[in-house]
């Protein structure tokens, strides 16, 4: 308890950075993921290929390596700090998984939906936006929830590049107080403060959409 009281501002600062990084990465990876999901189902073969390469690259490389790539290599050309490098890496990494999730959602929407919409005079993009994607997201929601929770936990990657997040501050507190066990329990509880409400909200959203159908 003393541990929490003495270092409360440190933990809180870390909590803030973790939350900020998670929110930015969530929004960015959602947009990127949806974009690359659509690329992969477009009729043009080469566009599909581009989407597929993107997904395979970022899905199959460890997040730590992507992070170090931005922190140590890209930073030489475009100066960026650990927080920025980590958040970018986290967004790209997660977006590959979200692309696959959303693609699976789109594919499970009956193809008659798209054909029907096109027959009624909607353009491909209009049909995608108003008819297919809303249904796809609903189907993909449970696995999207998984990705979001993973994203929050993966944000601990920032600790390796001095990103000031919860894990980084936890390492500092553990190093200064020598109480490793106690510190990491507190850090775990702080993560739960983000992930538990998030998973409940996703469940709630799932239930709400089910009834709406």
């Amino acid at each position, binding site marked *: 308890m003393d541990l929490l009281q003495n270092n409360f501002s440190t933990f809180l600062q870390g909590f803030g950075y973790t939350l900020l990084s998670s929110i930015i990465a969530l929004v960015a990876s959602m947009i990127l993921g949806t974009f690359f999901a659509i690329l992969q189902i477009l009729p043009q073969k080469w566009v599909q290929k581009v989407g597929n390469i993107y997904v395979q690259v970022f899905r199959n490389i460890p997040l730590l390596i992507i992070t*170090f790539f931005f*922190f*140590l*290599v890209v*930073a*030489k050309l475009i*100066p960026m*700090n*650990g927080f920025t490098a980590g958040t970018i890496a986290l967004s790209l990494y997660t977006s590959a998984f979200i692309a696959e999730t959303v693609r699976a959602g789109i594919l499970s929407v009956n193809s008659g939906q798209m054909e029907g919409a096109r027959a009624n005079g909607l353009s491909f993009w209009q049909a995608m936006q108003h008819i297919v994607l809303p249904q796809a997201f609903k189907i993909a929601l449970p696995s999207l929830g998984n990705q979001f929770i993973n994203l929050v936990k993966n944000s601990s990657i920032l*600790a*390796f*590049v*001095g990103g000031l997040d919860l894990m*980084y501050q936890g*390492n*500092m507190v*553990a*190093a*200064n107080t*020598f109480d*490793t*066990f106690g510190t990491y329990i507190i850090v775990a509880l702080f993560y739960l403060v983000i992930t538990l409400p998030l998973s409940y909200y996703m469940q709630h959203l799932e239930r709400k959409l089910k009834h709406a159908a």
Partner: protein
Amino acid sequence: MEKAKKRQFGIIATIVLAAVIVLGLMWATATAKKNQEHQDTLARVEKLGRIVWGVKADTKLFGLMDTKTGISKGFDVDIAKALTVQLSKQTGVPMSAEFVPVSSSSKIQLLKNTNIDGTVSTMTITPEREKIIDFTKQYFDAGQSILVKKDSGIKSIKDMNDSKYTIIVVVGTTAAEETKKFAPKAKLLAVQDYATGMQALKAGQGQAMSTDNAILYGFATENPDYQIVGGTFTHGPYGIAFDNDQGPMIRETNKALATLKKNGVYNKLIKKWFSNVPGLDWHELEAK
């Protein structure tokens, strides 16, 4: 009926799950506590016939992992080997030395959990650390310094007391604390190990890396574009560390260390590791 059954199952499952989690936590806490209970290190190593030493794996000259063999090499490792031989002679119990790689932030916890018996890992003797672990007398004299790029124009740590500068340190080292005192305005970037720190310095994530001069010399030899400036600004000799309250082990190790210094083994190791370091007067490190 069906619904009631489902509900009943749900309630039971929740209770069982909660019980498993609570019991698991209790077990983990109990194990952690048990590990922290006092054990006599000397008695333990004599009984098992081996000493498990924590050594660094990322620090050139002191403990650097040979990627081919997976074994650390360096001054620390050789000192630990020599000490094990000497301790075997003193106690009359033949003991072998085993090595476990440790990091700056993990070594104290590993000592406390008795994963390692002792550690020779470029560890500065500080009053804070002495409260929770035991140190022998110093086995190496070191002091903190900074490593900068040759054309940076930075002459000493004082030049860096400005919020436009970032100083790279490693989590859990004394340098992380001391740097704040000498350059309070500069930003700190704490990384997990020295190798990452050097990479971050090269990538321009900071303008200097700060830690003990002896460690920085290792990096300066490998990276000719970088140099150590301003000399040392702290004095922080290294000690060999054991768990708290290890009177007998500390006594025996101090005795063994004194013998190594007297019979020339210590000086031979100093020569082996530090005689080729440019800019370092290795004769100053010798035991007199």
